């Protein structure tokens, strides 16, 4: 790996400070690391394994960033980028692994408070991604709340910081999004 934690940390500081170009340099670094971690994880994966998106994001953070030099706000922004990148990577993997095979099992997507486990089965992940796309067309911010919390494991406070809204708003949107998404996924199952 050609990148040092100092370099990534500097880019993160610069981006949160308003330097857009820093983000363009940061994303490929985050992508490469998350892709590498996801690949390792997938090849070891057992069929019943539950994939922990937020655990992989956290591992990437510890590897890429000089955590001692990053303030809370910047950390939240790192996790926000990672949530989006991780979502794309996991869905790519899931689609590649034959998501068209549809079985009769109940969805294993579960939404819990705080750090959240991503769905275990490929088709669940693809169905969730599709539902999130549909949600984004109706309500972009609410979809973002789900992406940040579900794929990045951001807390309500961190999500609020990234989206520049109150924690209370985040929690309300999160509660609403959960019931809406579960309904959509159930409908998908029935179809």
């Amino acid at each position, binding site marked *: 790996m050609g990148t040092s934690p100092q370099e990534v940390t500097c880019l993160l500081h610069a981006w949160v400070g308003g330097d857009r170009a820093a983000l363009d340099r940061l994303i490929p670094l985050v992508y490469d690391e998350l892709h590498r971690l996801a690949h390792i994880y997938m090849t070891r994966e057992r069929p019943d394994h539950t994939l922990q998106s937020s655990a992989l994001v956290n591992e990437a953070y510890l590897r890429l960033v000089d955590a001692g030099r990053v303030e809370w706000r910047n950390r939240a922004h790192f996790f926000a980028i990672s949530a989006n990148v991780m979502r794309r990577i996991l869905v790519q993997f899931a689609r590649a692994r034959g998501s068209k095979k549809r079985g009769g099992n109940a969805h294993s997507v579960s939404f819990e408070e705080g750090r959240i486990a991503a769905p275990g089965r490929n088709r669940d992940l693809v169905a969730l991604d599709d539902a999130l796309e549909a949600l984004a067309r*109706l309500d972009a911010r609410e979809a973002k709340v789900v992406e940040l919390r579900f794929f990045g494991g951001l807390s309500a406070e961190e999500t609020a910081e990234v989206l520049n809204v109150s924690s209370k708003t985040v929690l309300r949107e999160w509660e609403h999004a959960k*019931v809406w998404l579960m309904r959509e996924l159930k409908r998908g199952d029935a179809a």
Partner: protein
Amino acid sequence: MNADRWQRAKEIYQSVIDREPEQREAFLAQACAGDELLRKEVESLLPAGWRRMA
């Protein structure tokens, strides 16, 4: 559903949840004002027992 209707349904959903149980039914009926589709949309999101649960 378009984004405006989505927002409307979301606001009603949240207002129903925020209200005291005994006020919910009447509030929902009034907020949807005969728009059965809107009412169905909101009700499909509410948890079972929404009329009573605290």
